[in-house]
């Protein structure tokens, strides 16, 4: 798949050699989680469980537990998004890719439990899961790339938990409108913040496809906020999107 995942671990003081070893072990565990997710869910590998499900070589009854878990989360996300996120409406068979990257990154973050850690952040190609603080109890500050100039920052967010951003400029993946079956280009990008990256990932995809009407299904979700950067560069958002205060 070629996705690069970066993991930053923060400690509140210099770590001892033993503590570093502990974090290294947890890094190994995190990598195994990401590796396993790739093996199971890669639609590019014909032998993966998801590919075999899509080709009907196996049925839902035969899939590994993780696939059943992810599909059930996809069903929840489909319902919460009013059908704007719908892995079952994708060409080629059920495709949970819009949720899996975030789901896997959130699980990788959970590997980092060492007591010396004050905060940790897992960044899966722009989908980010975090806990704790980079230092002094302050929240993480995360930039959102400008969809019209991706090396520039459009906004800065004060992050508690996760943020996912979806945009029509993603490589090789047109955002398909489940209602029409055709690519949708209604926004520059859509970002969703909230406690769980898997759900945020799915909801960001849904809002990117739906455009401004998508804000209406994010608003009622406790803990989740959304920001749209429009094709014209304009902003629209839910009421409490966590912009960072100017420094």
């Amino acid at each position, binding site marked *: *798949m*070629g*996705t*690069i*995942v*970066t*993991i*930053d*671990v*923060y*400690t509140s*003081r*210099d*770590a001892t*050699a033993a503590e*570093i070893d502990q*974090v*290294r072990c947890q*890094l*190994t565990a*995190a*990598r195994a989680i*990401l*590796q396993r997710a*790739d093996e199971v869910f890669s639609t590019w590998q014909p032998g993966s469980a998801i590919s075999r499900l899509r080709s009907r070589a196996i049925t839902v009854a035969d899939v590994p537990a993780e696939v059943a878990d992810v599909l059930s989360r996809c069903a929840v996300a489909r319902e919460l998004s009013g059908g704007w996120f719908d892995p079952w409406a994708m060409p080629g068979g059920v495709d949970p890719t819009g949720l899996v990257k975030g789901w*896997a990154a959130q699980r*990788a973050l959970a590997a980092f439990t060492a007591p010396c850690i004050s905060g940790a*952040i897992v*960044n899966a*190609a*722009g*989908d*980010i899961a*975090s806990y704790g603080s*980079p*230092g*002094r109890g*302050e929240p*993480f*500050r*995360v*930039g*959102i*790339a*400008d*969809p019209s100039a*991706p*090396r520039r*920052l459009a906004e800065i*967010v004060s992050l508690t938990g996760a*943020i996912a*951003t*979806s*945009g029509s*400029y*993603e*490589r090789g993946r047109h955002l398909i409108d489940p209602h029409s079956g055709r690519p949708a280009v209604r926004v520059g*990008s859509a*970002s969703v913040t909230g406690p769980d990256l898997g759900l945020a990932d799915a909801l960001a995809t849904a809002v990117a496809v739906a455009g401004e009407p998508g804000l209406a299904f994010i608003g009622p979700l406790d803990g989740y906020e959304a920001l749209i950067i429009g094709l014209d560069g304009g902003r629209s958002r839910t009421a409490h999107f966590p912009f960072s205060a100017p*420094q």
Partner: protein
Amino acid sequence: MKRAPIVISATVAGLAGVLAFHTTPAAISPGALPAADGGQPAAPASRAAPSGHRSSSGRPAGAASPASRAAGTSGETRSAVGSGVDYSYGVISVKVTVSGTRILDVGIASIDDGGNPHSESIDQQAVPVLEQEAMQAQSANIQAVSGASYTSAGFTQSLQSALHRLGLQ
């Protein structure tokens, strides 16, 4: 532009777990460069503390210690270029520069695209995820960037090859 220390892990074909810690004050600022003679990085210039916050520990900014020192690895700066790998529009090779186990810089060493016009968009989006590190270094006190990013399997494979040549994978 020097990037903040990062950990790299890959969902495909295991890149080395290059591990770096950040300790407060925040990570290395753009102005800090590794010593040319291969010694430890110069003490990073402290980022301005947010107003109203003063460090009660009194630790000087220069005392932030990269994990590479604690782990006893060399701080020597080394570079390698990975094998050319086919990507969508031609052949790409990636150059990586490290100090000990810490990645300092990643860039495209060469693209041979046969003049394909699509490669211009590759160039603009090149080094995509890790460019985010450069963006972080440019901006005041952010730790990550969110945004749909282009990631090429060819880029990742060549990066992996370069790290292998440095003995880091």
